[in-house]
């Protein structure tokens, strides 16, 4: 099993009492509008969505349909204009910025389209980073990060800086980084958009494997229909509305 849960991370946050029963993420009539000078762009229009623990959800739809906006809101990177985003049974609007930082650190993992690894850190150090932000000492963090690297077959590249890794390799490091804190949920906005189809398939397969073996919840967005053929739950976004939400 990848990055086994440890007591340190277990007492990481005061989540609400009944969070095991409620969905991990719930959108309640969420509207998000961006103001761009004089014009107002509405990216999400009254979205209702609930993602349960252990789900593997693909958000798909055409460009500009609001996929990134949805991912950002689910990851507490941004706040809705109207409506509410609930995380573990609690309205995210009630958290302070520091509390949201703490929540993201301990409970949410992120995988980005552009990998977003720190260029000055090695693959290993990049994976260690969320643990070190949490405050875990370097030797413990290194051990866990090494185990992760082994899991994604990247051990030989531990000391390589991102610039010396291929896109697929970087994204595997990024997945390790997202999973290292044993989060409840991983948000991946277009994780395969910068990859060729082989690497893209491998990344989706890797995420699915982590979902299956560890029960980590995944929400990922894509506009590539091919990568979601085998995904159980597919949410189709068009023009800021959920047009279709199928569970196979």
């Amino acid at each position: 099993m990848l990055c086994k849960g440890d007591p340190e991370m277990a007492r990481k946050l005061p989540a609400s009492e009944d969070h095991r029963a409620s969905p991990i993420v719930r959108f309640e009539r969420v509207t998000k509008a961006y103001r761009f000078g004089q014009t107002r762009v509405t990216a999400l229009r009254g979205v209702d969505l609930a993602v349960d623990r252990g789900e593997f959800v693909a958000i798909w739809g055409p460009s500009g349909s609001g996929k990134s906006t949805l991912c950002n809101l689910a990851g507490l990177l941004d706040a809705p204009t109207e409506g509410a985003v609930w995380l573990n049974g609690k309205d995210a609007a009630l958290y302070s910025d520091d509390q949201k930082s703490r929540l993201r650190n301990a409970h949410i993992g992120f995988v980005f389209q552009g990998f977003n690894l720190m260029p000055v850190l090695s693959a290993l150090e990049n994976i260690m980073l969320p643990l070190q932000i949490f405050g875990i000492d370097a030797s413990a963090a290194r051990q866990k990060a090494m185990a992760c690297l082994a899991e994604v077959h990247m051990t030989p590249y531990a000391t390589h800086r991102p610039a010396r890794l291929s896109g697929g390799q970087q994204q595997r490091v990024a997945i390790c980084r997202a999973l290292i804190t044993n989060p409840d949920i991983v948000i991946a906005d277009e994780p395969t958009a910068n990859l060729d189809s082989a690497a893209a398939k491998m990344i989706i397969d890797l995420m699915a494997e982590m979902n299956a073996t560890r029960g980590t919840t995944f929400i990922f967005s894509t506009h590539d229909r091919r990568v979601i053929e085998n995904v159980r739950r597919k949410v189709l976004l068009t023009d800021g509305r959920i047009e279709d939400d199928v569970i196979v």
Partner: protein
Amino acid sequence: MHTWIKIAVRNLTLNLRRSVFTILAVAVGFAAVNVFGGFADYIFAGLRDGFIYAQGEGHLSIFKAGYLTEGKIDTARFLISAQEQTRIRRIAARHPEIEVVTAQLGISGLVSNGQISTITLIEGRSFADMQAMRARAGGMVGRLEFFTGAPLQDDVLHLGGLSSGLSEKIDSPIGSDVVLMAPTVEGQINALDMHVVQNFESPVQALNDMISLVTLDFVQALYDTDAVDTFSLLLSDTARTGAVKTALEKDFAADGLRLEVQTWEAMSPLYGKVKQMFDIIFAVLFVIVLAIVIMSIINTMSMAVMERTREIGTLRALGLKRTGVVRLFAIESALLGLLGSTLGALITLVAVWGIRLGKLSWIPPNFTTRVPVLVNLIPGDMLWTLAFMVALSITVAILPSRKAARMNIVDALGHA
């Protein structure tokens, strides 16, 4: 903490050229402030030691209350009698930090070469005491002789010196004889012969064509008195000047003596003025250095923040708090300040040694001999400068990084 230092160091090496230029700016600023400060310190020490030791004025001067303002016109009213002199010496003896006690008497009169005569201030000193003061000087400036010609001796009454301007004015160079004339305390005219054996520069340039220097006994004989007008005290430690002044004032008052005690700082005509001038120059230099250092660090740090906005967004997504972002850039900036200051300290050392090896010399105002130009190394000041530079670097980094840390995370992530 270690991780953040590591990230900061690596980012600094990644932008090596920019980092090096910033470090150089800090280093040059650091060195400029400390070399100039060290030079000023050397000059102040020279003026101080010159006044206290070489001119034999000591750390403290004692005279009758009011002497400083009216005494030069009406000396007789401010004389310290033989009996009072004994009391003063007895009180001074109670203070172990007083090492030399010497009396002076100055009167005004006429000096004549047989054909022409002119007004002169006749200063009577004990040359043994002055020699004792000079011997206690720490720095080389304090041991300098300020005259050309032969030294004066207490037991050869008729030998004396003229300030160079006076010597010229009455055409009486070293080796000639003059007559000093003055009224006695009683008001009768008295005259004594003097053999000119030395010339000197007056500490006050305006008086350089007026001063005759003789033994105390000579002036007392001319003035027909055993009184003096001033006592000069040399202390073992300059830092004790204020404390001893206060103690003496108390003791004199308790003994019924109406005396005034002044410190060398108040008495030295040059020290205060030069210090004021140097302080102004230093302030100007400091402002310039400050501006350069602040601008280069602001420039470097705002560029770093701008270039790494997406990275800041990523770190925030990973859970780094706003303060964590600020800390990251503060560390980076502090390192620039620290490295710059360290290099600056090295440059200062090299400059100080270079100036020492270069054996530069000059003739300061009122000196007759060349003295070396040196720069004092002041470790305490250098530590302060270092602390200041680091604090400044941190403060300057906070502005741009705080702004970036408060940015909307999605916007930061979307930053090219």
